[in-house]
């Protein structure tokens, strides 16, 4: 039996709201930039200057056998920056519509066993869409997940409605769900807005999880925590509904999806938009002609957890443009000394803080454990099911400094290191 959680907050996005129409826009450039801290060792499968079709393999991951990344759009490889240690720094593509789409062989329904599905998803790069918990990051093919959570609800401020994203792709979505059920021996949970289930016939393996549309209940973390806590021995994967439809499309037709539904919101925009664009899209290209004059910051992600970026990052489905607020000069040295001492700032338990953690777990003890770096308590209270993005709302509500999500990321990294065999 599932319970509809109602404790949460709905944060409205300041600025214009998107209308009902969905534009399609493929930006002239698309790029993947690996941050300096990243360590992605690759073997290039397309050379600089070469023309690649949409969906054609670009490079192969040397540390994860069989895992490739494919071109998000048809184009020319303008830059492929791989250093002498084979570490990928940047790939940039220039759009060339004539380059066509790469066709993968469709997988017949009777051949969709876990082994071949895993290999196929890894070869086509769709494996990147699955996210594993604990610790986040790539799913480990050697370890079958205890459950997979499909998120057909997104409650981040300004997020596009996942149900609109899979509109017209119901067959592909069902086929993707069936593939996910083959990947796990446990249940597949489909989390959706209460009253609008994308699938009617749930079975013992496919379980519907209706949720009230309040943040953070549109994030997978709290549902995983409530239904099937993730542990290192029994990992849990989560995936967005649109990505499930992408898997279905690939298996049925052999084509990788060209676009994903992305929303553009924020105070820095003249008009908010819903559009379909390619992964790694150029955010400046998407915003051009729609921003207010003056300095703006472009975030990939929502207002709560977005990071300043030039390109659409990872699995983000949101771009937030915020007007730049100039700082009021340099404060007095004494005030700045005061505000920089005594970090992290103390947390005061209020109703707002409880709501920001969804009411499903002892919020204050968990946040205090995270702020003080107490891995054991945090783990006991269910931190392994969560990812830093799940704490973004608590960060926002309490104005925490340093951000709890950053402290949590460091704590998770430490737990992962201690847990490593």
């Amino acid at each position, binding site marked *: 039996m599932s319970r509809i959680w109602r404790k949460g907050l709905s944060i409205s996005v300041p600025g214009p709201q998107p209308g009902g129409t969905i534009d399609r826009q493929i930006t002239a450039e698309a790029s993947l930039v690996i941050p300096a801290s990243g360590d992605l060792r690759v073997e290039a499968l397309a050379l600089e200057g070469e023309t690649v079709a949409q969906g054609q393999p670009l490079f192969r991951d040397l540390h994860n056998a069989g895992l490739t990344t494919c071109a998000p759009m048809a184009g020319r490889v303008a830059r492929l920056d791989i250093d002498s240690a084979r570490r990928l720094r940047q790939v940039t593509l220039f759009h060339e519509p004539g380059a066509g789409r790469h066709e993968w062989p469709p997988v017949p329904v009777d051949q969709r066993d876990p082994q071949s599905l895993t290999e196929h998803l890894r070869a086509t790069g769709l494996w990147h869409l699955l996210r594993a918990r604990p610790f986040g990051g790539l799913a480990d093919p050697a370890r079958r997940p205890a459950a997979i959570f499909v998120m057909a609800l997104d409650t981040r401020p300004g997020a596009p409605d996942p149900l609109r994203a899979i509109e017209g792709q119901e067959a592909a979505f069902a086929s993707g769900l069936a593939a996910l059920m083959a990947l796990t021996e446990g249940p597949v949970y489909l989390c959706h807005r209460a009253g609008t289930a994308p699938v009617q016939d749930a079975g013992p393996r496919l379980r519907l999880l209706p949720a009230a549309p309040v943040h953070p209940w549109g994030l997978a973390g709290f549902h995983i925590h409530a239904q099937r806590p993730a542990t290192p021995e029994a990992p849990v994967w989560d995936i967005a509904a649109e990505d499930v439809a992408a898997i279905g499309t690939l298996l049925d037709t052999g084509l990788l999806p060209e676009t994903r539904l992305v929303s553009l919101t924020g105070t820095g925009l003249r008009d908010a938009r819903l559009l379909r664009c390619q992964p790694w899209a150029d955010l400046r290209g998407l915003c051009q002609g729609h921003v207010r004059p003056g300095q703006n910051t472009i975030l990939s992600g929502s207002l709560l957890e977005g990071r300043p970026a030039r390109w659409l990052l990872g699995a983000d489905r949101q771009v937030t443009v915020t007007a730049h607020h100039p700082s009021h000069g340099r404060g007095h040295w004494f005030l700045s000394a005061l505000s920089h*001492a005594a970090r992290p700032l103390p947390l005061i338990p209020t109703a707002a*803080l409880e709501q920001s953690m969804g009411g499903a777990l002892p919020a204050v003890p968990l946040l205090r454990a995270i702020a003080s770096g107490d891995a054991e308590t945090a783990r006991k209270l269910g931190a392994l099911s969560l990812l830093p993005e799940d704490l973004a709302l608590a960060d926002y509500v309490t104005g925490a400094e340093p951000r709890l999500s950053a402290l949590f990321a460091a704590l998770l990294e430490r737990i992962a290191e201690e847990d490593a065999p």
Partner: protein
Amino acid sequence: MNRGLWDRETVAALLLISALPLAVTWLALDGPFGLLRLAVFLVVAGVWHLVWMLARAQPPSLAGALTALALAVLAPEDLGPVALLLSTTFGVVAAELTFGGWGRNVLNPATVTLAFMGFGFPAAPWPDLAIQVGWASWAMLAMGLALGVLPGPVVLGALGTLGLAALTGAPVWAAMPAVCAGLALLVADPVASATTPLGRWLNGALYGGLCTLFLAFWQDAAPVQIAVSSALLASLAAPLFDEISIALWLRRRNRRHG
């Protein structure tokens, strides 16, 4: 910068705003003498906050004013200046500032100060709170709950226990002003009370239960003294209630998820 407003000083300011009805009613009844008392406690608490700011770069907090108000309303009368300085210093410094300021303290500094005064200077008479102060504490509790800065279960647990006791005929109503002012100013402190739902209910219920018990069996104790003693014991038990609550939660979870 994208951020909400529930940081430490906002909460302290909202708590002060909720306390305004109580402060105004009490000042209107006590007149200039009350104002002087409040000023003295404000100055003592403020000086210690300043000292810790200069010596330890610890930002001062508006919560110091809340401590001063609680002390002005509840502290024994006719304390000499030395006794007053000593006990306020002990409460503010040892219960709050040494822990890193408001938000990191384990006990409410006003509770500790009042308990110190009660143990250290037992001859000083406890104040007799007027019934209006009692009703003003209800206003403070209601405002604090509506603003979300006071822990609801603590307040409801305490009032529920006291209500039950009153129904069974315990002499609770006569001490209502002191018990409710103690609840509003000392027990329902968001930082020093329990933080888990069950822990909060137990924390409030313990305060109500202790008040009832003391009122029934503690001969010759003033109502404020009873409220302060109950508040101290309830605050000391708060971490235990949190532990119990978390242990039960974990047991339920382990049974469910294996």
